[in-house]
């Protein structure tokens, strides 16, 4: 069973990409809202909001990673598992990018009816698979994704402890 999953050294770059994209997006939106929060929230309350956001980002990163790992375990090994840091990284970028696109299309009122959603998901998957295929064939694209995964790993040293502290803070707020 263990052989069906990629190694930890292949998983970490993918988790790094997911974390940087999700935490990064939330950080930008957080700064966008901050000016209004400063009008009526104390610094302590704003820190609590950051804790909620941090835990949410951790959960969404881990859930997406879990989906990719499940896919790696279920699909033929050469499709995803064998080169997980590259193909998984490409899929992670595609997933986050398609979410951003969906949210943007909704904002500009260009998102189609719910009946089109399966097409959306199919399109995103096809694009992700195409990108991962291109990444494994075109060296510069592949190198770029692996490089991103490696470089982003350093952020895990900040983001993961921050999320753990956030979990403790929120548990304390729920219990007391």
């Amino acid at each position, binding site marked *: 069973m263990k052989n069906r999953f990629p190694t930890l050294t292949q998983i970490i770059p993918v988790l790094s990409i997911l974390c940087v*994209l*999700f935490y990064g*997006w*939330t950080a930008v*939106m*957080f700064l*966008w*809202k901050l*000016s*209004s*929060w*400063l*009008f*009526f*929230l*104390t610094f302590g*309350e704003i820190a*609590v*909001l950051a804790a*909620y*956001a941090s835990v*949410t*980002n951790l959960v*969404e990163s881990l*859930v*997406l990673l879990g989906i990719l790992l499940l896919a790696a375990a279920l699909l033929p090994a050469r499709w995803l598992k064998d080169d997980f840091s590259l193909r998984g990284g490409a899929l992670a970028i595609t997933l*986050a990018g398609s*979410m*951003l696109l*969906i*949210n*943007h299309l*909704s*904002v500009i009122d260009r*998102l189609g*009816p*719910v009946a089109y*959603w399966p097409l959306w998901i199919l399109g995103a998957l096809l694009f992700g698979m195409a990108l991962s295929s291109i990444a494994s064939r075109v060296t510069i694209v592949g190198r770029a994704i692996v490089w991103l995964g490696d470089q982003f790993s350093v952020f895990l040293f900040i983001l993961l402890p921050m999320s753990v502290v956030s979990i403790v803070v*929120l548990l304390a*707020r*729920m219990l007391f």
Partner: protein
Amino acid sequence: MSKLSRRDILKLTSVAAGGALAARTLPRRLLRARQADKPNVLILLFDTMSAPHLSLYGYGRATTPNFARLAERATVYHAHYSGGCYTIPGTASILTGLYPWHHRAVNPGGPVRRDLAGGNLFRAVGTDYYRIGYGQNMWAELFLRQFHADLDLHLPPDSFAFRNPMLLSGINRRDPMAYIAFDDFLVGGVKLDTPYPGALTLGVLDLAAARGRNTDRDLENRGPRTTPFNGYFYYENRAVFDGIYETIRTAAGRGQPYLGYFHFWAPHGPYAPTEAFTGLFADGAKVPRKPLHPLIEPKTALPDKALDAYSRVYDQYIANVDAEFGRLLDRLQAEALLDNTWIVLLSDHGQLFERGVHGHSSRLVYDPGIHVPLLISAPGQSARVDVRVPTSNVDILPSIVALTGGQPPARLDGALLPGLGGAGVERPVFAMDAKESSAFRPLDRASFVLIRGAYKLILYTGYPGYDDLLELYDLESDPGELRDLAQSDPATARRMLDELNEARHAADAPFIRPKGNQ
């Protein structure tokens, strides 16, 4: 001293046991006896209900026949004002008895000042009461979260509604920050500051859930109308009123007096009257034509025709809500559940359909935006009483606390309402909109209102690009606020401005930072 016999010991033991039992049960009995004397208080708050649109107050369309029915055995307040012109300041003023310049819930989504939160209505009525809080408006829910420790039953906002799995603030109902974090930021929600969700995945899931709800079979076959929606979940007014009826029935059966605060979203927009009401008021009536205000950008102003159309659907929705209220009232009366109950019917703010503005999020503070209904029916009251002196929603808390024998908070702006022990003399009534000011600083960019007798003074101050604007109206002779008397009656304007400035500068004083620390 003779020895105690076995019989004596048995006697003493039984007396001691009986005494201990009596000592345990007596306070409970006394408590129950004390509670039995106390009346129930049922507060029904209809969000965004403008008094000038109610036939109860003389509006041309028959929007509120059931309110009028209750009015026949209630005290009707004809010049009642909200503390602010949208939910946050308006509701906070009701629940704290303070004007916004004191409670500082002035910004969209902003809570009551932390050191004053303990002075809320629920704590003030005390633990003799079974205290129920329900806020269908998420900003009202924000305050109920802030006062959660003082509630015995805190109904989730989507009770009696089509559940929204993305309403994530339910994870921790005690925490006001959970609402701001999830429903206002990470999932999306009100989208006042940014149209994008704070968390990408939650935003996508919310879109999927929202679109799924729109096509839900439960919501089909409802005729040519939209389903009521509060920005977070869909619901049907009938189901909500049925749920409130059941809640009241259960509370009344507890043998303990209850205070029920029920904050309905309707008739807040989007207006969604049921089929029975969508054809009403095809009378061609127009909203009063008024000049555009200098603070309203001409390019954002709505044409009068659009305001006419909005006004008609709003009136239909009020009639719809009134009918549901009538049904609730009849059911409660039929089961004698109102016999020892005060009924308080009010709103947190009004709605504008004039000067190019539709809604309650502009800077304007004209009467339709802040003049709200207030009816209070006492247990056993059989005749109507009309009160015409200006009153305010800040008077609700002290009046209810007096009815319930509770302990009023140390700081209060409100006073006892006339008809409930209040003197009924003329006193200043304030209202304000300071959403563009910081809650932690003096409210220097805001719209202020002072009502004294028939006169109403409006001060628009600090808006960038505009000079301070002062307006004075005589509401008795000019209820439509069309003839500005600030120039023609400068003495009254000056006197009222001095009174307003004195009050607001006193309220701002604790927030002025020493020079060099700005």
